[in-house]
């Protein structure tokens, strides 16, 4: 009985050992299987993905640097254009005619239309400030009034700062530069109300009567009101 029991227990032990062996082998083969699967996944999925990712990174960085280069190029191009534009302005400077006090006398006589005259200089800050408004008024009342500007800059600026400023302002009105041995005498020719300060703006009706003047910066609204007044009184051609 005891030997039978011993034999059974030996058999059980043997079975148990065999089962353990089998289990270990199964686990080993399972690990191997996982390893093989991982290798296979690396080969089939990860590596192509990684390669694709790398390609994308390279492509994006290349694209970015290309965009930056393009941006730089773009910023250079307008600068070149600006230089060209500046060159054009300089080469197409408006003509400024030199006049003396005698010519000024003839110039301030209206020629069938109201005459608006602005005395200015490039060194005069308020003159520069009001100039865009003057250009606008000139455009708005084109053919209805005559507008001229008379610069009191030094003669040396007749082909320099004076036409350059006029070009910047896109001023198309006839422009003159007064060169006189005596500003005092020239001022007296224009108006008894002008004390000689710049800017000075004066509006004559077609009969040569001064209907508006302003020493110092003019107020656009007031000057326009005066022009409209001339229009309603029938002084402006329609």
């Amino acid at each position, binding site marked *: 009985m005891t030997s039978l029991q011993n034999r059974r227990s030996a058999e059980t032990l043997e079975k148990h050992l065999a089962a353990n062996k089998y289990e270990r082998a199964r686990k080993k083969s399972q690990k191997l299987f996982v390893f093989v699967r991982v290798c296979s996944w690396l080969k089939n999925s990860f590596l192509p993905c990684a390669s694709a990712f790398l390609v994308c990174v390279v492509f994006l960085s290349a694209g970015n640097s290309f965009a930056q280069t393009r941006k730089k190029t773009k910023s250079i191009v307008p600068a070149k254009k600006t230089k060209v534009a500046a060159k054009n302005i300089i080469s197409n400077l408006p003509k400024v005619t030199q006049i003396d006090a005698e010519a000024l006398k003839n110039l301030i006589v209206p020629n069938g239309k109201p005459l608006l005259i602005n005395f200015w200089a490039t060194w005069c800050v*308020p003159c520069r400030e009001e100039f865009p408004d003057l250009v606008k008024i000139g455009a708005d009342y084109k053919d209805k009034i005559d507008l001229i500007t008379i610069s009191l800059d030094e003669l040396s600026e007749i082909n320099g700062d004076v036409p350059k400023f006029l070009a910047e302002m896109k001023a198309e009105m006839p422009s003159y530069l007064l060169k006189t*041995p005596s500003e*005092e005498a020239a001022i007296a020719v224009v108006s008894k109300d002008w004390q000689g300060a710049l800017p000075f703006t004066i509006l004559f009706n077609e009969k040569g009567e001064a209907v508006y003047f302003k020493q110092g910066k003019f107020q656009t609204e007031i000057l326009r009101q005066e022009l409209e007044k001339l229009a309603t009184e029938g002084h402006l051609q329609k």
Partner: protein
Amino acid sequence: MKRMSVLITAIFAVAAFISFNNVSAKDGLAVGSTLENFKLTDTGGAEKSFNDLKGKNGAVLVFLSVQCPVVKGYDERIVKLAADYQAKGINVIGINSNSTEVADKVKTHATENYKFPVLIDKGNVLADKLGANVTPETFYFNEKNVLVYHGAIDNSRNGENITENFLRAALDSSLGGKAVAKTSANAFGCSIKRLAKN
């Protein structure tokens, strides 16, 4: 009542318009008028009176500017004139009425360029009183503070080909006890940048 207020408003509006349009007209002190004594601060901040600064034969007020190129063109002649006539009892006093020019710059400019006092006319009160509009523009008052001459220094802004020395002629006539032949001449230059008033 409503009509009345509208009428008053309209009158004020017209008056304001007329006065605005002629703001630079020849208002101010007429030649032959007497100047009341006034006080202004100099570039060092000290208060100075006209009567204390004038010479025994009067004073010339010159309206100046730090930035105006026409003033720059005249600076040398102004300094020479001040020296020449100080010896004859007429003192030159500079006035700066430009609201756009800060006191520090006025001080530096005066120290660098002039040997006579420069007063700061804050709020252009004196310029309004005299009717000064230009820089440079001069007012010569004799020993009795009577305005004898008003206007340009001479007829050339850059000093070339001066044919008429308006101010010197007036000063010499006055000092010689003669009548001044030309009592005013238009000054050419920059407009005085007045304080905007509401």
